């Protein structure tokens, strides 16, 4: 039951429109700093573009996808009209306003601070206020998800919450809490300086607060993808979810362990004690657990589908899978990229190995593979799956969809593999210019050229994606029937309270944040003489 289709479509269209723009900027960045581009004589333009690209891809695009998908889940899984539609539109318009407000100073070169803010660098105050509006808009969504679940529970006392909604609400709580770190940094530290009320800033504290957000935001980006793995893919390929409880456990594990590990982004920071770095890296090791559980459960669910279709043998069933089904293809590509990206992640998370790739192009290669690759390809799949239900029209050209997914996969591999490689060779990230004529880095020229070519393949795929969706708005009308989520092999009739509610896990999430962040934040906030003068973008 999808009633508020306009609301959901508005979120998706805005998401994909800004995605298209940011993707073009990304391809341009890749090109301009590669040997095939000519030296851009003003590096400032590169950083403008990078700030816009990072801000959109990191904050605006995934948030809008999660919100649109979240509203769809709430209506379809709970079989209940969305409560608070006016609020939902208010949230949407806040995001529109925030994005416009942030983009103007970026375009004017007044906020080239990159999406990680980089204090003591300080840009125009409207950039930060814009980001705050985007976050506030998304918090409305968090509240609505919680309210809608509550309304449903009242009507269905004791009934198991549908998996899709359980996971969706878990994701929204994770976001609500993880955004607090950056919100504190912006509201208490950066905005007062940007507004001219203060002229110094504690950059070390700002980095710690940002790390509070930086890791778990990654899992917020991941949530729609994981929800699609569990609740869309098995249905789309004619299988069943191997285990409903396993799925719930994965999502609650994300809630608990995604938060208290962010300091693995501050391994190289002197203001954080080594003991806390150790605790954070130990918890980081745990965060692999829900992903391993997921890979296992999804592989098992896919195997069920294959065997139902008559697949035989130890591995022979793989051939019986519906490979011409875009959902199958997207899942397979996503898993391959997740596998490679995960292997790279193991290197980032180890204190010693990290030192050799810290701040190199390896990092950008890594997160493009996981985020741009494994995660975003499932965003595409979600859109393809929902589109007929949202538009009431059919997506006819499956071949075109498959081509688009193939292009994204191939493009991502061509872009990110050489990107990792030059990182190992020591090429720093966030640099606008490289002199490949210098014998010392000449050998990297070929790899960077490949990455740039991959970037254009990705751009082509992105354009194709938007074209497919736009054509889908004009296709002949067809009734897609009610929207359904995958069923489990054993569809639960009762679920233990702990796995049907979020309270315990939210409590543990907050408790671990306090133990792992409380002391470092307090000492930094209370010690004197830790602030440095702000450096204003564009100031002489």
């Amino acid at each position: 039951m999808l009633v508020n289709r306009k609301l959901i479509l508005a979120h998706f269209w805005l998401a994909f429109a800004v995605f298209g723009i940011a993707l073009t900027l990304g391809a341009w960045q890749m090109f301009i700093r590669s040997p095939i581009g000519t030296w851009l004589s003003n590096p400032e333009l590169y950083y403008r573009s990078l700030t816009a690209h990072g801000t959109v891809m990191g904050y605006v695009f995934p948030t809008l996808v999660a919100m649109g998908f979240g509203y769809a889940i709430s209506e379809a899984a709970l079989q209940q009209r969305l409560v608070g539609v006016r609020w939902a539109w208010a949230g949407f318009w806040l995001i529109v306003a925030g994005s416009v407000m942030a983009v103007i100073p970026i375009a004017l070169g007044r906020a080239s601070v990159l999406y990680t803010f980089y204090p003591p660098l300080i840009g125009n105050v409207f950039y930060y206020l814009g980001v705050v509006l985007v976050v506030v808009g998304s918090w409305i969504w968090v509240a609505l998800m919680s309210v809608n679940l509550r309304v449903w529970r009242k009507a269905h006392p004791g009934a198991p919450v549908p998996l899709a909604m359980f996971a969706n609400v878990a994701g929204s709580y994770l976001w609500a809490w993880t955004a607090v770190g950056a919100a504190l940094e912006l509201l208490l530290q950066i905005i007062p300086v940007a507004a001219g009320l203060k002229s110094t800033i504690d950059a070390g504290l700002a980095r710690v607060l940002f790390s509070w957000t930086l890791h778990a935001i990654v899992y917020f980006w991941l949530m729609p993808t994981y929800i699609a793995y569990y609740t869309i893919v098995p249905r789309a390929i004619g299988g069943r979810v191997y285990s409903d409880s396993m799925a719930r456990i994965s999502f609650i594990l994300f809630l608990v362990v995604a938060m208290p590990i962010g300091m693995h982004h501050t391994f190289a920071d002197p203001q954080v004690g080594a003991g806390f770095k150790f605790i954070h890296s130990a918890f980081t090791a745990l965060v692999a657990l829900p992903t391993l559980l997921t890979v296992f459960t999804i592989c098992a669910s896919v195997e069920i589908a294959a065997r139902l279709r008559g697949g035989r043998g130890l591995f022979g069933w793989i051939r019986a899978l519906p490979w011409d089904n875009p959902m199958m293809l997207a899942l397979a590509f996503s898993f391959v990229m997740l596998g490679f990206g995960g292997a790279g992640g193991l290197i980032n998370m180890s204190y010693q190995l990290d030192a050799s790739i810290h701040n190199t192009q390896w990092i950008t290669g890594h997160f493009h593979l996981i985020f741009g690759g494994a995660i975003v390809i499932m965003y595409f799949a979600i859109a393809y799956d929902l589109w007929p239900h949202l538009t009431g029209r059919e997506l006819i050209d499956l071949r075109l969809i498959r081509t688009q997914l193939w292009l994204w996969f191939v493009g991502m591999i061509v872009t990110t593999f050489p990107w990792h490689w030059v990182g190992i060779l020591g090429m720093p990230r966030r640099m606008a210019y490289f002199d490949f004529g210098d014998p010392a880095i000449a050998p990297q020229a070929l790899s960077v050229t490949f990455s740039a070519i991959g970037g254009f393949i990705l751009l082509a795929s992105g354009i194709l994606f938007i074209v497919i969706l736009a054509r889908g708005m004009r296709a002949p009308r067809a009734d897609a029937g009610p929207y359904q989520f995958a069923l489990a092999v054993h569809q639960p009739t009762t679920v233990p309270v702990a796995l049907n509610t979020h309270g315990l896990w939210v409590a543990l999430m907050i408790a671990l944040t306090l133990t792992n962040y409380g002391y470092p934040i307090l000492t930094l906030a209370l010690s004197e003489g830790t602030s440095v003068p702000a450096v204003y973008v564009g100031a002489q």
Partner: protein
Amino acid sequence: MSTSELFTFRNRHFSLAVGITAAILIVTAIAGFLVLPFAQPWVQFANVWDAICSAAGVPQRAPKVTVPEQSTRLSEVVLTSSTLARPSQEGIGRGATLAQRCAICHGPTGVSRADSPNLAGQYAAVIYKQLLDFRSGARTNAVMSPFAVNLTDQEIADLSHYYAYLPRLPAYHPTPQLPKPSIVIYGAPMRGIAPCGSCHGSLDNKIGSPWLEGQSEAYMKAQLQAFASGERRNDISQQMRNIARAMTPQEIDQAASYYASQPPDVVKAVD
């Protein structure tokens, strides 16, 4: 299905979840705060508490060691983007009067006919910083230093505003346009040298960096060599020494003759 059923140790899930989480936290804390600090034989701790504090990152005052007396003074000037922000007409006028003593060497229009540096239209913060450094002894020059030692803070500010206010006249030694040397436009990223223009004004101006176009070739060459040898060391955080040290003698020649031949109109104005 109420929370009272959940938040109690009678609930198996609750005890399990809280127990496992607490256990992991305690084990990692013991490892991080006790075992690992002592596993580093090269670090000495007075006692267990000392080790815990160190692992927690408690800010500790460095032990009072006597800092050896500096043989050369370093720059003590603090520059921020609002240094000398609002020049007044009176200030500029006072500066003009004061500048008459400087004219013999720096030229009546702020453009020198000898190899003294041109000052006309230079960024105010640069004049200000250099004069403070000459006065404190952080930068020394037998010819110039005596003219700075007796200046007051106000006089230095006025002179800075005055010279910054003068128009940027073309220099006296323009040579035919030289090709852009790669060290100037690209820098040398592998040696940590950013393009000169990213600080010196043609791409961007980092506060305290003078613009160089039309400056005397001999002067610039001498300054670069002095930075490289460490004879001049008033640049904050060794910004310029790190660059000059990594430049080859040919690059120093190329950069100096290139900048000397350039007209000053490519330089970014101050907002």
